[in-house]
């Protein structure tokens, strides 16, 4: 365990800078530049986690973002702890603390490991099949399943880190800074294009940066020294922005991309301070160049998941980049030349490679010759049939493949090892390309999907486009770039490229074994424990669509989204079902490419910045007077003003009584206000409201009801005629923006001939509403010059006047049924006018009231609230408001719909009043209304829409919608509640002052 497997210096490791970190409670050391994975491997630790279903021991498998197994819980602290972090990506820092997931009590001894022995009884779909019945038991099962499911733990306290969003606009975005991306970025930038180059890793150069071998040369330099010069050069280009540790998460239409930039995750906690942790980049690029590279494929054979089994390319990267040997007795298993590159790299580092098992029988290339020269034993035409070693691989068994690759023949050989590198060839990373809507095509000769049809101005280059060898890349890219970027020349023509890589490959999706197939465990999806057997079972059970097989077996549904195994799943399906890979298609690649934190997604939009909130000009007064607030749309409205520890109910009762007995004052500034001008303004109102407007005299107000074209009530409010061609319309608070939008729509598209101008003035005015029998005395005190007599200033009229020097519009309109005035002043004067009214009203006990009291008062009068008593299925007739629908008008929005066969039905739900048998019992809003409790099934007649205890009537009152309610006056109905039933009587919805005497009191 304590062995040190650090070999000759790795390229990116600073050996002078030792870093200590903790893993599963123990302290280890690594060097600056290490990833958690490389540091663990240097300490000879492979076992880092347990698999999801069988709890099999799992080790580090890759060296990149495609890692399925080595996912860890980071940080101990309950606000910063983060699950499913890939050990292969996280860079170590002093004090890093990581632990294994999905195991209990520890990764070395995991109780859940019993699932591995039960695995014959846990096939694909086990949970679906087993917990289906009896259905009533699900709730019991669920508890245990939920407990055992899930990877890692989420934080339980708010995230202390800062995240942000940033927009970037560029001419060219290059994704991936490997050799292809660097060439593309330099070419674009040197031709004057504003270019952004991003890469998920902390360094540039991709895998070329450590390709330091005689076998890969450009202009007679090793490819790594060649790329290093290129990197130095691009860093100096002004119009090229380079972002490392930046992973593109999503590629949407119109070249809109989202990327996560990691800013502080590699720093010790104490150095992060208040710096932004991660940034979500919202990139809009004119052109996108994908140079996302390729992912090495594993090979699918029995027990291919043990700790110590890695991708061959990962072993090479750990050796070259980090100076870490993954084992002391290494074996490579391959079907192509890549493993030989690894072998040669290891050899140069002094790391022992004993044997290479190659699926191919007849092979010959410079790389193979060199391996042979170095005394590596090569088994040609062989395959691994099994492995052993529970927590670390210790042996492999190999056998010869038959000519057709379907069987194994001959005798079995066993070889000991402590590390096995596998290489199944390469899969182009086309994830982002397909996210953008791109269509793939299947290339039969090496069994890969490559980009085919581009949906936007973008291109894929290099190995993500299926060009896997250095010579292909350097030959093709300059040509493609010149055309795509429309430039005359690049720096990359006539390069002298030398590559020893031979492209031959023997692709067998599922390698044969000497065991019967049913006894093998050949993992396709490592994280979710989906095996080749599960996939074949799904096909036997009748699943055909790749999307269905995926969901049934959970292949590709882990946090890694099956980056390694999805191709093999497809291959096994196509072989078993005898269909062609190209025709089978792939499962859908969805964003994000690698998981994003919620913090990154929400950015700064947290806490008080979650949404905009709007305050009235009088808001501060409400705060000072201890109002409770309620959200109405984006507005904060005073809800009620509790005094001396009053409950909401007590406050509302007091406020409601005061408003009827003496005087109340309400901040009505949030009501929508639309200024309407133009020679056709009257005609326009005629068309949008149900009632007639042409004859409304200047200086008069009128209540209007607005419908949708389907006849349903949309909004309501009072509109005042200020002048011949000038009106001010009020709308509901929540409906203001939509009403304006709807009116503009009609004006611009249906009635462009009308001379009408609309301006939203909601925020320009503050509105103070004073109501109650003493309202006239109060308002006339602050406006002594105005004649407040009913003759001069009757109900439903308006006056232009002044409060001191402040110009104001004052309307005598009422939403409470009381004598009342609405004073509109320029917003800046709102608070001072409010305070003047409070001052003047002192002797009348003027009582500020909030929205709750307003709702109660209007319910006493049976006035509707659009959106509370209506729900887009109510016509004015349903609301018993026939009086407001003009019979004479030729047309208005929604008129024709009021006599459709459906809207004239007698048994529609209609608004009625409801009185409880027990006057103290207050109904719950939303409660169902029925007639017969013994009926089965019980017919739901409607529901309660508004309900209050009225202090003025000293009884409970409610409004509700009831099927056929209009003709049920006096009828008894039932409100069934959880543990009681409440008897109610259908009543007139107007409970108080039906004759409207109070308006002129």
């Amino acid at each position, binding site marked *: 365990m304590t062995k040190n497997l650090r070999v000759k210096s790795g390229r990116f490791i600073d050996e002078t800078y030792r870093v200590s970190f903790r893993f599963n409670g123990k302290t280890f050391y690594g060097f600056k530049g290490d990833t958690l994975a490389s540091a663990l491997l240097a300490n000879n630790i492979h076992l880092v986690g347990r698999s999801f279903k069988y709890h099999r021991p799992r080790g580090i498998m890759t060296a990149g973002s495609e890692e399925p197994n080595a996912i860890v819980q980071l940080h101990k602290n309950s606000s910063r702890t983060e699950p499913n972090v890939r050990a292969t990506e996280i860079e170590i820092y002093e004090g890093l603390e990581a632990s294994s997931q999905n195991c209990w009590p520890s990764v070395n001894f995991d109780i859940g490991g019993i699932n591995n022995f039960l695995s014959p009884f846990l096939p694909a779909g086990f949970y679906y099949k087993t917990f289906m019945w009896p259905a009533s038991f699900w709730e019991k099962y669920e508890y245990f399943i939920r407990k055992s499911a899930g990877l890692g733990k989420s934080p339980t306290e708010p995230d202390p880190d800062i995240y942000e969003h940033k927009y970037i606009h560029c001419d060219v975005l290059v994704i991936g800074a490997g050799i292809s991306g660097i060439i593309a970025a330099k070419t674009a930038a040197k031709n004057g294009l504003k270019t952004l180059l991003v890469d998920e890793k902390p360094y540039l150069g991709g895998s070329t940066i450590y390709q330091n071998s005689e076998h890969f040369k450009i202009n007679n330099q090793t490819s790594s020294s060649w790329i290093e010069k290129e990197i130095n050069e691009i860093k100096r280009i002004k119009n090229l922005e380079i972002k490392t540790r930046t992973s593109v998460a999503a590629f*949407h239409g119109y070249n809109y991309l989202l990327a996560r930039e990691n800013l502080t995750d590699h720093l010790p906690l104490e150095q992060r301070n208040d710096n932004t942790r991660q940034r979500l980049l919202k990139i809009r690029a004119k052109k996108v160049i994908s140079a996302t590279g390729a992912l090495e494929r594993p090979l699918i054979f029995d027990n291919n998941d043990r700790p110590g089994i890695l991708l061959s390319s990962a072993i090479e990267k750990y050796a070259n980049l980090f100076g870490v040997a993954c084992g002391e007795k290494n074996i490579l298993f391959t079907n192509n030349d890549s493993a030989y590159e690894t072998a040669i790299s290891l050899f140069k580092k002094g790391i022992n490679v004993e044997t290479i098992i190659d699926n191919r029988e007849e092979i010959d290339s410079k790389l193979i010759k060199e391996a042979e020269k170095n005394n590596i034993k090569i088994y040609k035409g062989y395959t691994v049939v099994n492995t052993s070693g529970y927590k670390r691989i210790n042996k492999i068994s190999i056998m010869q493949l038959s000519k057709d690759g379907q069987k194994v023949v001959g005798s079995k050989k066993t070889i000991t090892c402590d590390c096995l590198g596998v290489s199944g060839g390469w899969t182009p990373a086309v994830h982002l390309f397909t996210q953008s809507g791109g269509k793939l095509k299947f290339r039969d000769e090496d069994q890969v999907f490559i980009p085919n049809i581009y949906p936007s101005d973008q291109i894929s280059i290099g190995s993500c486009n299926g060009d896997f060898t250095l010579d292909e890349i350097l030959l093709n890219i300059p040509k493609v770039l010149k055309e795509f970027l429309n430039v005359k020349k690049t720096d990359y023509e006539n390069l002298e490229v030398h590559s020893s890589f031979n492209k031959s490959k023997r692709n067998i999706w599922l390698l044969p074994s000497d065991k019967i197939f049913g006894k093998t465990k050949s993992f396709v999806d490592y994280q979710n424990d989906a095996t080749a057997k599960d996939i074949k079972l799904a096909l036997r059970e009748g699943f055909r669509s790749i999307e269905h097989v995926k969901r049934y077996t959970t292949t590709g549904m882990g946090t890694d989204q099956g980056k390694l195994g999805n191709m093999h799943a497809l291959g096994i399906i196509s072989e078993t079902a005898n269909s062609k890979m190209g025709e089978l298609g792939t499962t859908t690649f969805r964003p994000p490419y690698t998981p994003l934190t919620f913090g990154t997604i929400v950015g700064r939009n947290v806490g008080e910045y979650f949404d905009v909130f709007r305050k009235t000009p009088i808001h501060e007064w409400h705060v000072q007077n201890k109002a409770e607030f309620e959200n109405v749309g984006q507005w904060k409205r005073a809800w009620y003003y509790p005094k001396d520890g009053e409950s909401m109910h007590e406050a509302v009762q007091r406020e409601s009584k005061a408003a009827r007995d003496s005087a109340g004052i309400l901040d009505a500034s949030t009501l929508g206000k639309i200024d309407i001008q133009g020679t056709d303004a009257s005609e326009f109102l005629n068309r949008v409201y149900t009632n007639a407007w042409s004859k409304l005299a200047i200086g008069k107000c009128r209540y209007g009801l607005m419908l949708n*074209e389907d006849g349903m009530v949309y909004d309501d409010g009072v509109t005042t005629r200020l002048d011949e061609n000038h009106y001010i319309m009020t709308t509901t608070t929540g409906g203001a923006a939509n009403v304006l*939008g709807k009116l*503009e729509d009609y004006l*611009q*598209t249906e009635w*462009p001939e009308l001379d009408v101008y609309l301006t939203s003035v909601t925020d320009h005015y503050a509105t103070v509403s004073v109501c109650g029998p003493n309202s006239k005395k109060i308002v006339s005190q602050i406006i002594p010059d105005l004649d407040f007599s009913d003759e001069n200033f009757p109900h439903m009229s308006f006056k232009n006047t002044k409060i001191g020097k402040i110009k104001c519009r004052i309307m005598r309109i009422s939403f409470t049924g009381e004598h009342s005035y609405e004073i509109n002043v320029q917003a800046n004067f709102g608070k001072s006018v409010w305070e003047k009214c409070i001052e003047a009203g002192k002797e009348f006990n003027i009582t500020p009231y909030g929205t709750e009291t307003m709702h109660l008062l209007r319910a006493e009068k049976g006035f509707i609230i659009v959106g509370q008593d209506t729900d887009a299925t109510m016509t004015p007739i349903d609301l018993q408001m026939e009086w407001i629908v003009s019979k004479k008008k030729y*047309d208005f929005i929604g008129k*024709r719909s009021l006599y*459709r066969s459906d809207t004239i039905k007698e048994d529609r739900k209609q608004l009625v009043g409801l009185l409880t048998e027990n006057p103290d019992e207050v109904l719950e809003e939303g409660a169902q209304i029925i007639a017969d409790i013994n009926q089965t099934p019980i017919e739901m007649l409607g529901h309660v829409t508004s309900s209050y205890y009225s202090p003025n009537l000293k009884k409970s009152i409610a409004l509700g919608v009831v099927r056929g309610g209009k003709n049920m006056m006096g009828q008894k109905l039932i409100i069934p509640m959880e543990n009681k039933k409440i008897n109610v009587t259908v009543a007139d919805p107007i409970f108080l002052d039906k004759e409207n005497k109070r308006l002129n009191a």
Partner: protein
Amino acid sequence: MFVINCPYCGEREQSEFKAGGEAHLVRPKQPTELSDDEWAEYLFMRKNIKGIQFERWVHTHGCRKWFNMVRDTSNDKIKAIYKMGEKPPTK
């Protein structure tokens, strides 16, 4: 997220706009003279084409002007944009 070329303001992000459904449906001049079926045809029936669709958009968080768009719903390519009242492109 599209980039939409508002005929009054120029290219803007889609988030500034709102879609308003099918275009070129003219509100009947005399709705009261229509049968229930005819009125329902105007009121409810909308095309939902995979392919070329004519639709209305409004620059809500901009000039607040309505305009028409021809969009291929299968790949979201915007084929044409023209002002209200202008004739739709024939090709």
